[in-house]
């Protein structure tokens, strides 16, 4: 009888503890949710733990990422990607950078490096690939690597819309790889509009616009505005482009900028 009473009391106490834990769970829920929402607004917790990530990372990496060590896993994979790059194993570089950027989508550096490896390094390697005798296929491979670099940058911007660095890299990609000056100008301008952007972004946007057929007037106005902003902006490239546009647009002599040395 005593034994039964003892067990009943223990059971009552266990049920009571469980009820208290659940009540505490209900109490903590609004606080947890509020923090979760704030994290999302600040673009924290950009990683979704799903089967795609599991397949990409492998079991061990996935467990490590689950236990709150995703940035360390990302670093290890980044170092592996660096080694793969030194060995010019481009497919592996691509695979590893996909994993790295999935795990650390807020690290600008990883998106930037991924795009640089694809659009600048792998694309050149593809063009110089001696095992591929057909030029058309080499060009095709090169264009594919450009597209991969562009894709990394676009996804990087989507994850970090407030940082100017990736807009600038995308502008450089358009300028150097696609020779698309209009898009380059657009992304330099987007970078310039963001807080923390270097002062040259605005100039670069105007330079790129000056190469666009049909947009010379707009480019001239922007360059002139920069020129009038003061001595600091009157750099050699700006003066050269401005003079070129003055000539092209037949700007009146009295409105032109003075020649250097005069």
């Amino acid at each position, binding site marked *: 009888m005593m034994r039964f009473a003892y067990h009943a009391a223990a059971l009552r106490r266990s049920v009571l503890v469980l009820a208290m834990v659940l009540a505490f*769970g209900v109490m903590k829920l609004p606080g947890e949710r509020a923090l*979760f929402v704030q994290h999302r607004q600040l673009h924290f917790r950009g990683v979704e733990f799903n089967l795609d990530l599991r397949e990409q990372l492998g079991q061990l990496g996935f467990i490590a990422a689950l236990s709150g060590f995703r940035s360390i896993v990302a670093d290890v994979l980044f170092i592996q990607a660096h080694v793969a790059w030194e060995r010019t194993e481009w497919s592996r570089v691509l695979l590893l950078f996909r994993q790295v950027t999935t795990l650390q989508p807020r690290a600008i550096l990883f998106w930037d490096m991924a795009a640089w490896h694809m659009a600048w390094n792998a694309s050149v390697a593809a063009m110089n690939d001696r095992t591929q005798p057909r030029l058309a296929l080499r060009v095709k491979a090169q264009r594919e690597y450009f597209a991969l670099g562009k894709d990394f940058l676009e996804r990087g911007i989507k994850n970090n819309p407030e940082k100017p660095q990736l807009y600038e890299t995308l502008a450089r990609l358009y300028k150097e790889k696609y020779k698309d000056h209009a898009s380059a100008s657009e992304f330099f301008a987007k970078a310039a509009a963001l807080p923390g952007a270097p002062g040259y972004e605005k100039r670069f946007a105007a330079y790129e616009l000056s190469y666009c057929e049909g947009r010379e007037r707009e480019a001239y106005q922007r360059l002139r505005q920069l020129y009038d902003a003061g001595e600091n902006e009157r750099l050699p490239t700006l003066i050269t482009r401005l003079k070129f546009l003055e000539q092209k647009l037949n700007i009146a002599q009295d409105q032109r900028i003075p020649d250097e040395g005069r």
Partner: protein
Amino acid sequence: MSNETAAITRHRAFSVARVFAITTNTLTELTRLKVFYVLLIFALLLIGSSIFMARLTFQQEFQILKDVSLGAMSIFTSLLAIVATARLIPQDLEDRTVYTILAKPVPRFEYIVGKLTGVLLLLAISTLVMSAMFLAVLYIREQAVLHETLRQMSAAPREQIDDALRAVRSSALNIDIFPGIVIIYLKACLLAALTLFVSTFATTNIFTIVVMVFIYFIGHLQATAREYWLQEHSTGWITHSFLALVALIFPDLQTFNLVDDIVVGAAIPLGLFAKTAVLGIFYTTIYTLLATFVFYGKEL
């Protein structure tokens, strides 16, 4: 009034001095443990070795150094919190110390609070030692990179040199690292309180450690389960109830992983830091109260 009655009237329901005595004893006991030194030395070695890990560009190097060091701090403080707390009550029961203490007019609440405070002090000391090591390593690397930059750019204009040095400094130490370290400590405090709660009904410390390892993993997934549950996806009632249980029973440990974003340069708003800290303190307090409640009902 007899002496006995006077002693009873002098006895207070809660005494800081008694809690302090239990705390200092617990701390002394824990600092004598080999496992504490092994964990601390491993953490310090890992933090120290991060200096040699990746000599890439300085941004990459600093990011990896911070990732590894803060990751090491996070894992070792969590491990220490679990391992050190799991043995407290079972060890006292085995050594029969608990009977000696509780035979005196020491309420069980004071015993639990004293024990936990001892662990929290140990965690604070470990966090401080690891932080000092981490900051020293970061400072040494920062100075080396600054000197290297100055050497490489000696012929460049002053403005460019200043820009480069500013870039190095901003990549190395940012002020948000400090709230990140505080949050790592609070996460360890939470785990210590939760371990104490589990150990009040566990029979062995191995059981406590195993349960805590599971809680640690589930805690990092709790947010996913909670959001899935609250978004009311069309799942069956079994899944729905299971997700609700996970969301209500386990703490959201992912909330305390701010360092992942801090190392990539994200700024932590004061409001977010304060809310996270309050949540951590709230969890710790509640788990301590629950531990006390279970401990009061324990047959000793």
